[in-house]
């Protein structure tokens, strides 16, 4: 059963065709990767899926619902969240507050004028420990290092208990010694909490180890897709990266 089904999506910006006839399927509970050289349209695809801009043609189905005309907040409420290459966090609030505000507060309007519940606070502590930020939890998010902010952003997404998480280059800019830890956490989150992952990655080692199925974009179109071993040996993919 596909959680996310992207069908023939096209998107161009002022003359430049960023995505053309792009389709992909993300089965529920799986980890799917997207690779491709710079400028192949990966981030544009993400933006189209999460509601950042309208698409020119095609369909996007999430959990059985057609979402290509919905806005970002609506799609987020349906259970699809996305992280960015540059971290997006609440810089002037503490890590704890960043986490608290990421809980599902809209769920119960009657409680919104009370402080956060114990369950939320416990979840905050648990997730901050999970990403290794527990000791820094009272620091302002803006004062964290880039890699720490990425972890915070990841933890914040987990607070919402999403159905699917779209990660845009999660290891970019992260200290190589910390990458393994990050991969482990991604796998944990997928296996233990059942969160489906769709990951854009440049780091081949990471994505080949992490994903169960990989799509390769080049020049705005889907070049190839398949299991990591297949993709690694696909001549078209190799050519795309080495340039022709």
């Amino acid at each position, binding site marked *: 059963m596909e959680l996310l089904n992207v069908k023939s999506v096209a998107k161009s910006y002022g003359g430049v065709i960023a995505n053309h006839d792009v389709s992909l399927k993300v089965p529920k509970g799986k980890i799917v990767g997207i690779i491709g050289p710079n400028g192949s349209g990966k981030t544009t695809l993400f933006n189209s899926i999460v*509601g950042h*801009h309208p698409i020119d043609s095609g369909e996007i189905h999430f959990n059985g619902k057609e979402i290509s005309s919905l806005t970002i907040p609506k799609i987020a409420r349906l259970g699809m969240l996305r992280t960015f290459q540059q971290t997006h966090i609440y810089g002037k609030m503490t890590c704890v507050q960043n986490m608290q505000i990421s809980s599902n507060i809209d769920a119960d309007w009657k409680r919104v004028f009370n402080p956060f519940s114990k369950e939320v606070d416990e979840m905050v502590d648990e997730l901050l420990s999970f990403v290794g930020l527990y000791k820094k939890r009272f620091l302002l998010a803006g004062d964290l290092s880039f890699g720490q902010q990425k972890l915070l952003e990841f933890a914040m997404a987990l607070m919402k208990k999403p159905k699917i998480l779209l990660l845009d280059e999660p290891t970019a800019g992260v200290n190589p010694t910390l990458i393994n830890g990050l991969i482990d956490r991604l796998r944990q989150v997928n296996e233990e909490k059942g969160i489906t992952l769709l990951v854009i990655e440049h780091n081949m080692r990471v994505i080949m180890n992490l994903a169960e199925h990989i799509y390769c974009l080049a020049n705005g179109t889907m070049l190839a897709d398949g299991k990591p071993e297949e993709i690694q040996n696909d001549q078209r993919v190799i050519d795309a990266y080495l340039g022709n």
Partner: protein
Amino acid sequence: MITYIKILITSPEFLAQLIINGLLVGAIFALIAYGLALIWGVMDIINFAQGELVIFGGYLTYTLFYQFGIHPVLTIPIVAVLLYLFGLLVYKTVINRLLGEKDIFITILATFGLAILMQQLMQAIFGPDVVTANPELGMLFLFDGALIISNIQLVSFVIAVFVAIVLFVLMKYSRMGQAIRATAQNPRASRILGINIEKVYANTFAINAALCGIGGSLVVMVWTIHPFIGLVYTFRSFMIVILAGLGNFMGIIFAGMGISSLENVTGFIIGAEFQAAVIFCLLVIILVTRSIKARKKRQYIQ
């Protein structure tokens, strides 16, 4: 109110009169709005004191006319220069500190504070009463008296158009104009290429002040001013810029004239004392409609 609408329908020359008056005077509004768009586009400064700069220019013309006997039309270049210098002063003391401020509300509140200061200064110096500097140029009767245009409106229209042309030429062909446009597009690249960004910003703000001054001189000739009417001009400029879009020179001219005519006609129907209320409702309607349209297309108003 219905009677007024009936009058407009039965005597279309009345409607034409209102619209043409609106168009003539709208050129002034377009000029002021252009200045606002200029600093918004180049420096990302949203100037809440725009109207006060206009009124200040008006008071200068008034003073030069009544204290020194200079014909109002001739005061315009003087006021332009004075306001240009004043703009440089304001830039160095206030605006300079606001550049690169990520919190847009600091710039909004700062220019708002400047507006308040100017309002109170003008009230303290010139008094709270309404003043005008009408040079009494007479009327023009067209179509057997069916269309009456006061010459001062015509003159101010011509002057506004002239200034607009000068501005256009300046922006396109002069070094400063090109530097300004380059900076608006890409400040970093401009800096690397040797453009003195400080000078560009200072000049941009000063040019805006000069434009406001000219607008103010024309305004005090065509109508009246008082220390607190600046708000209406600020608001109107915002509306024109929002309607036309930041980079759209021609759009601002059309929007300025269009809004002015619309104001005239609605003012006639509802009553001129509801001027601000009418403009306000108009702006809200425009923004809300846009917001709804944008949401349907997954876009967001920037």
